[in-house]
């Protein structure tokens, strides 16, 4: 077995593009779920809106990239308003169902033949819509070290992506330790109490939904630009659930949780996959038990199992402190 290759793949993934995408998606969810207690199960919808805004506006409408990015942010705000207006006054589970439904609506519209002309149907959009971004790349030759290996474009995405993550995280940190953040945390604990103290709970929930949604659309930008393509089925409910896994892994309602969670998630995912794959090709695991093609299935089983175990035995996340109580908005 080629352990150097396994290590290189795993570490590259741990700091790679997917880690950045999921860290951003989970930062948004942390604002929603971790701090405000909003069960947003439609984060994939915000990513889709971000990704499709960039791809469609640049490819079909010839927007400059910066304008498409701005429009993407605006669109995610509109989505947050559309989701929030009917549901934020209702019980938590209604928001969950409406957001998951809305994300599905977005995905199905994106993949429909009816809007094929602009959104590319089930094939999505592939094109050079990121060329303005990659034109700025100073690292054309990429990186090739024993532990990290990226090609030129990926390295550029990784560097700018982490810079974005750090900026977003800094703003989040400022926000959640402000009186504004205190209102959010209080809403998570008991919104009636917050109302009785004269705070407009609805307004704060809406602001939380919008900000987390914007960060979600950033994740969509990175997703689309890094691959220079968008495909509707990448934005299914599984994406949202994996983002939740990442968040809970790191520990909800902690500022750094999404980053820690995402790094660990992707490291483990790729590490386990590579180990299994090599073990199967080297014959350590018989082919009749696990075929090479089934390795991917095993890792998703482990994600599901891991999410269950975390929630049951360490709901505070792997870095969390028991004293801070299990996360449960209705405890």
């Amino acid at each position, binding site marked *: 077995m080629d352990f150097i290759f396994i290590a290189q*793949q795993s570490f590259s993934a741990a700091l*790679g*593009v*997917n880690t950045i995408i999921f860290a951003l998606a989970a930062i948004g969810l942390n604002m929603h779920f971790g701090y405000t207690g909003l*069960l947003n199960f439609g984060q994939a919808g915000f990513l889709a809106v971000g990704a499709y805004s960039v791809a469609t506006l640049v490819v079909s409408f010839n927007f400059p990239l910066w304008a498409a990015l701005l429009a993407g942010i605006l669109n995610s705000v509109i989505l947050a308003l559309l989701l929030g*207006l*009917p*549901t934020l*006054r*209702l*019980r938590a*589970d*209604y928001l*969950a*169902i*409406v957001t*998951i*439904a*809305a994300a*599905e*609506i977005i995905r*199905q*519209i994106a993949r*429909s*033949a*009816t809007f*094929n002309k602009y959104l590319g149907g089930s094939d999505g959009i592939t*094109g050079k819509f990121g060329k303005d971004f990659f034109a700025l790349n100073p690292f054309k030759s990429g990186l090739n070290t024993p532990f990290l*290996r990226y*090609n030129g474009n*990926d390295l550029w995405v990784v560097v700018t992506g982490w810079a974005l993550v750090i900026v977003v995280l800094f703003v989040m940190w400022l926000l959640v330790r402000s009186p504004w953040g205190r209102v959010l945390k209080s809403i998570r604990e008991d919104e*009636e109490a917050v109302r009785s103290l004269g705070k407009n709970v609805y307004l704060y929930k809406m602001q939380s939904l919008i900000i987390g949604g914007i960060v979600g659309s950033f994740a969509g930008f990175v997703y689309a630009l*890094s*691959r220079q393509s968008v495909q509707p*089925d990448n934005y*299914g*409910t599984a994406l949202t*659930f994996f983002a*939740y896994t990442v968040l809970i892994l790191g520990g909800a309602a902690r500022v750094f949780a999404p980053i820690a969670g995402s790094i660990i998630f992707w490291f483990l995912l790729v590490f386990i996959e590579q180990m299994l794959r090599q073990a199967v090709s080297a014959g350590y695991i018989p082919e009749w038990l696990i075929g*090479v093609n089934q390795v*991917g*299935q*095993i890792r*998703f*089983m482990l994600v*599901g*199992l*891991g*999410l*269950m*175990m*975390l*929630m*049951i035995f360490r709901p505070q996340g792997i870095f969390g402190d028991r004293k801070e109580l*299990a*996360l*449960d*908005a*209705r*405890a």
Partner: protein
Amino acid sequence: MGKAQLMRKIALGLAGFFLISSFSISGSALAAGTSSILAGEIKDSTSTPLPGVRIKLTGPNGFATQLTSDQMGKWQVKVTSTGIYDVTLDQTSLPSGQALTDVTKATRKINVLMLGTTLTVLFPIGPGTEKTPILDQSAQLLADGLILGIIIALAALGLNLVFGTTGLTNFAHGELLTLGGLLTYFFSAVAGLPVFAAIPVAVALSALIGGYLQDRLLWKPLRKRGTGLIAMLVVSIGFAIFVRYVFLFIFSGDTRQLPQFAGQAGLEIGLVSITPKSIMSTSVGLLLLIGATLWLLRSKMGKASRAVADNPALAAASGIEVEAVIRSVWILGAFLAGFAGIMVTLNQGVSFLMGQDMLLLIFAAVTLGGLGTAYGALVGSLVIGVLIQLSTLIIPTELKYVGALLILIIILLVRPQGILGRKERVG
């Protein structure tokens, strides 16, 4: 280079598996080459290859060619320059009774970004539909909608009962449908039982494994630990993902048809055409629904379950064995959901994603009717089922679920507590 190729082979092997293709590590550089291959396989909805279908290609630098699919329905073309190619299927060359399910997809635009690659072009083909008068069409859609509504209702009843008695919003409920379908497939296609014998076995096992054992081994211990409701909801998501991929691991990703009556012809009844298997299964489904409703209304356990849903502490104090009620609700829920899964399997076949696809509709139905209200779920299911089918009169078929989900959101806007739900008290 060798590693890169290995990676690519692996990635190709996993194509079709919905997430992998996009999440696989982007380090695998594609080998440069001097030509690319555009290829495809023309099959109908039952995966029967269609030979002799004409394909026309046009591309950059005046590239144009025409060819027909071979005996296996396959075709391929080598191209030597990058650019956008138009691949057009000649619809008149399809055998009679077959048509593109989406006529806007007769021409596919393929972008060859780099040479040295193989690009697959697929066309969605299914049984052809002829133009029918709007009345016939509506009647047919109404019938289809009622059948769908009964399927959703069977599944929704259990979801709602579990929610009502335990507060669990169960995201793994869809997997109960898949379980019912896969068990039926296993006993009929693999073990060789006739479908009539396989169904009762599958339903019984669904109730045992999906109901009794699931509650006994997973949810009951969690309730005992005092796990919070949101935590349990997240656990159910993890469980759903786990179970789904266990199904995929065992049964692979294909949609499987039951060997008996896979391609049954429809009976003409008045304005509508329904297959005998559909009539049979729907009748049984309807009987089960009525039975379950009577159980809720009349039986001691059914009444107790409503009392628990209303106020668990009070119910426990008045001598109702809450755990026994929850156990029977799980068994009943899994039983009904298992049969709902079998109905779907009979009509469309079963794949590991079936439950996931149905789950949103079930949630929509339950929300529409009012969370936690048993009869609300029934009404909501029928409304959703009929709306989904009838909406195709106005909107494209592929967007029918979008319409249903939009209606759900609009109804919540107007009547947040659902159709039959009651307003809650605060404080």
